[in-house]
């Protein structure tokens, strides 16, 4: 089975976000594999172990993303591809990333492509579906279970707390939701082996793409942090008076009733 995983390097979930000069401050921050992509990597490795084949992890980014690719290789992926856009692109959006990935994947004869349901940084959840659309293959998002038998793919997807079972055919693209599996962490032998596994680096040129072909369709106008939560207020006095005061505040200050 020819398995591909789309992977993104994101901020560690424990990092505190700060803004400097109109951009998110990345200095000194720790980066990880986007946690939803980690489910995708785990599922891909399990698929390969059960059905045979090969797992290739692909990312679009800069040299720094090599670390996350190595982690995926250490978990058990076979090959990694870094599409390095550092020299070619100043900025990009979901269209940019999807276009590049689709261009890379179009002649790879992937049986299944796995991605995270959403990246924890920009949180759009668009790249997976866009890639499937560009490749003209079906996709199922937010999956919590995956079974493949021959060409038939049975998927359970999370629909706002409920679940839905869908049957489709290979090739397919799926995006992983929490609960799909418990991602392994790399073993020490895995870490040492990862050093020797192939990690290919490509640039837009190698995909016959120009800057213009992938120019972002959107523009970031402003980045700001959510307002800090103000301290709460404790009402005092008799219970009846407190209730009256609360209703009054909800009406006049918070303007919710």
């Amino acid at each position, binding site marked *: 089975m020819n398995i591909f995983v789309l992977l993104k390097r994101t901020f560690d979930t424990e990092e505190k976000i700060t803004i400097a000069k109109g951009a998110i401050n990345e200095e000194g921050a720790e980066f990880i594999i986007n946690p939803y992509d980690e489910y995708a990597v785990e599922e891909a490795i399990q698929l390969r172990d059960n059905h045979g084949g090969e797992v290739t992890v692909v990312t679009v980014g800069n040299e720094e993303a090599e670390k996350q690719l190595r*982690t995926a290789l250490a978990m058990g992926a076979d090959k990694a591809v870094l599409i390095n856009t550092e020299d070619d692109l100043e900025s990009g959006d979901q269209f940019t990333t999807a276009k590049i990935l689709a261009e890379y994947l179009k002649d790879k004869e992937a049986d299944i492509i796995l991605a995270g349901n959403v990246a924890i940084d920009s949180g759009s959840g668009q790249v997976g579906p866009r890639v499937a659309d560009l490749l003209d293959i079906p996709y199922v998002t937010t999956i919590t279970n995956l079974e493949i038998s021959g060409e038939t793919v049975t998927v359970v997807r999370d629909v706002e707390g409920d679940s839905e079972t869908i049957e489709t055919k290979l090739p397919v693209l799926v995006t992983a939701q929490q609960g799909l599996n418990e991602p392994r*962490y*790399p073993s*020490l032998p*895995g*870490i*040492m082996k990862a050093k020797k596994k192939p990690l290919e680096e490509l640039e837009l040129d190698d995909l016959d793409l120009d800057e213009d072909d992938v120019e972002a369709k959107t523009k970031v106008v402003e980045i700001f942090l959510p307002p800090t939560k103000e301290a709460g207020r404790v009402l005092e006095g008799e219970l009846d008076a407190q209730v009256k005061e609360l209703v009054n505040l909800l009406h006049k200050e918070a303007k919710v009733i």
Partner: protein
Amino acid sequence: MEKTKRIIAGGHYLVSEAEPEAIFCPEDFTDEHKMIAKTARQFVEKEVQPHREAIEDQDFERVVALLRQAGSLGLLAHSVPEQYGGLGLDKISKILVGEIVGGGTSGYGVAQSNHTCIATLPITYFGTKEQKEKYLPKLASGEFLGAYCLTEPLAGSDALAAKTTAYLNNEGTHYVLNGTKIFITNAVFSDTFIVYAKIDGEKFTAFIVEKDFPGLSLGPEEKKMGIKGSSTRSVIMEDCLVPVENVLGDIGKGHVIALNVLNLGRFNLGAACMGGAKEALKFAVEYTNEREQFGKSIAEFGASKEKVAKMASRIYAAESLQYRVASLLEDVLGDLDDCEDRRLVGSRLMQYAMECAICKVYGSETLDQVVDESLQLHGGSGFIKEYPIEQAYRDSRINRIFEGTNEINRLLITGNFFKKTAKGELPGKEAIENAVKQLQAGATEKLDGPLAKEREAIASIRNTFLAAAGAVYEVYGTALENEQETVMKLSEIAIELFAAESAVLRSVKQINKNGTEKERAKELLAKMVVEQSILKVQALSQELIGGLETENQVILGIASLIKRELAKYSVENRVKRIREVAAMVNEAKQYTC
């Protein structure tokens, strides 16, 4: 990794300063080191910590299951050569695992470290090819778990006084062992026991004993104060039959194995203690930021800040010296994976005996100080089992005792300095003369650049050690070993020197690379470490010199020179620095540098 082939003599730091660029720091970790650390941390957090209670209740089946799981992740294989089923990783990887697993899991960590260090390394370094092929792959995978049996009822620190005997049977096929080993870690679930016994009652020799060899039995589980997750029992041998091919190393040379392997055990123990100290500091920071008294969190009080800053600076020094030694050890041991020359192996393992002893002493005392202050910051809650600091406090205490008491280790440091000087391995005599000259001139070299004053202070501490060592030798000569009160002080100065120098060199190296602005924490921490060291050395040198029974004017002259030298340093801006360090630690919610 590129290896520097130039081997620095063990103890060299006592006679000469090192260049900041020449020492290895945690900031030099490779991507693989970081990934290994992350795996170790995930293992601790996801697999071990959820079972803290079961481990504390001595559910050894759980401990064994975890050890096997650690084996499947490669966490037991780091120090076993690749050709014997291990990973053959460097000493930095070894203590990264030691620090994280040892520090984060305590009792379980003791079981794991005991297995990978003193129970496996004797075979790794001194086994025959057949012994390595037979045992190492299983010890690396966790299929076999190991114990190390040296201590006896009448032979603790005086290990070579062992009473266990071994006699060759009439057929010449087996040695017959008789004796009792006590306080044996991992005893209840071990498959292999490295046992020391005297052949014909004389020749101290190591043996690999398997649990099923006839005549081997275990005593009852000891009821311990702490590290309950590691089994501790006596191992009893009554006409225990050990095949002759299970003699480990050369007959009569058991001490080479026993003492040398302990060097690496001490080195690893230092890392585990440092990791434990980081964990205990985290408990303190978490608690003090939550707990409110007098209308604010107790972390905001100056008394708490001082404790937190002192803990952090002490850990910084412990961490700095630990990884410095890791790299030194890698330089001497990295190419010994398949070495059959036991003399060479022995001498390489001995090279950094002093530094390994310092790792153990400084690490274990760091942990003891940190758990004590962390518990204090918990107030009454710290005395309640529900809070993990209660266990950490009990678990910490053994570290100053096992793998050679801190007293034995301190004796070793000064003893080795004089031995190495006598053998010409260290230019001790020249260095002492030079130090006295510098003290007489009253002017140590004026330095500039980052942490200049601290680097000058390090030079003064070094001169103090050397001049004091010279004076002590002048008074007692070779009878010095009968003067333990004095030796302890001298060793303590040697330890302070290594710790403070390691912290300063690390900070200078990072400041040279990234500038003072980005390395503010490291600058402050190094200053705190040196400030504390100078105060300590001032006191120690007075106790030391004031304890010498002498009227010798030369010696008394040296005493006043030392006093004058150290008086150059005074405490400045202390409170401001403490508050800044505490703010950083409280912000990070854990040790940070």
